[in-house]
């Protein structure tokens, strides 16, 4: 019985040591594999840092810096507040008539460049026969209360500013004529 046990014990011990040796024999392969994986992970992290923009994910799944870049675009229309800082006389004229609600650049066009450098950039002279008709040419889809005329019948090709001062369009001096037209 004792002998048997000893044999079994010796046998198992022999097998165990042989297994350990086998495991350590392959360790070099495992280390190589681990090294390759570590290099791959490091390469991925470096590559990701290089490729994904710095601000991506700052506010959400997009490039946060894009907001600032889009906001940095220069403006083309200066805004009527800017115009009125210099052209106070026109602003005062407009206040007396219905065109007070119409911003300067609605007729005169985008003039931020003129506002930045009033000396060298001058606004174009407007052709009132074209500009006024854009809004006031009669069209059945326009709101009924909006003043509109069929320009061909109304003025016979005359420029609108022959009678109507554009900034204060109501004809004050010839009231009867104005009523007749309306």
């Amino acid at each position, binding site marked *: 019985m004792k002998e048997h046990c000893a044999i079994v014990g010796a046998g198992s011990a022999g097998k165990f040591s042989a297994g350990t040796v086998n495991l350590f024999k392959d360790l070099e392969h495992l280390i190589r594999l681990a090294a390759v994986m570590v290099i791959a992970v490091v390469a991925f992290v*470096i590559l990701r840092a290089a490729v994904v923009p*710095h601000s991506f994910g700052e506010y959400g799944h997009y490039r946060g810096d894009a907001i600032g*870049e*889009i906001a940095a675009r220069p403006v083309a229309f200066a805004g009527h507040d800017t115009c009125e800082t210099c052209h106070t006389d026109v602003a005062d004229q407009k206040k007396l008539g219905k065109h007070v609600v119409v911003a300067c650049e609605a007729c005169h066009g985008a003039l931020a460049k003129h506002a930045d450098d009033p000396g060298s950039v001058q606004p174009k002279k407007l052709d009132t026969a074209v500009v006024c008709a854009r809004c006031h040419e009669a069209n*059945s889809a326009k709101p009924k209360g909006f003043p509109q005329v*069929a320009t061909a019948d109304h003025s016979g090709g005359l420029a609108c500013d022959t009678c109507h001062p554009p900034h204060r369009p109501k004809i004050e001096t010839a009231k009867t004529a104005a009523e007749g037209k309306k």
Partner: protein
Amino acid sequence: MDTTRRRLLVLLPAAAVAWKFVLAGTPEASPNYTLTGHWWGMLIDIPKCIGCGSCVRACAEENDVPESYYRTWIERYHVTDWHIERPKVESPDGGKQGFPPHADDGGKNFFVPKLCNHCVDSPCTQVCPVGATFVTPDGVVLVDKSYCLGCRYCIQACPYGCRFLNPKTNTAEKCSLCYHRITKGLTTACCEVCPTGARQLADLKNPKDPIHEFLRTHTVQVLKPHMATGAKVFYNGMDGSVR
């Protein structure tokens, strides 16, 4: 050979760090503007629109919109009697040059300006595969054109047809609600030039904005509410035929 490899391994992370600074981008353009302090939308008062096309022309000039493409446009509706399911809609050149007069044959005629609805749950941003379009913290849907691939998914996803592919840059483009203007305290180009006040920029987070009083006291709708996009362009006096 050994030295080169070692040097390369040292240089790679250093280059990555340097590149991060290169990518840091331009500084914030409007330092006084707080992103979280606003929630932008627009109010369109249909009974005030005269179809002059000022907004379309101003938008094109302000944003360099290519010819025959529109970030905003005007539609003329013609509805005969009770056929509100079949309106006749036209938009010659997006309404840029106004609308030619047409005979009033007894129907209902009106103009409807359209633009990006800057949806809260916008379908266009959800389909972008690269994160090139997004809703900003202040509620504006923007396109990052340096990141856009031009795959056109967003153009198909927008239920309002507000997007197009810019033929010059081959990137998706749309109304930015003049983000470069509203962050500087100006109104949008279209609202600036609208001669009748039919279009008004609205900051829904600003308690002093007249939009709140207007929304309380008027019957206001959004386009295609059944799409549940959370549209923030509010239409006053909109006819049932408008799609």
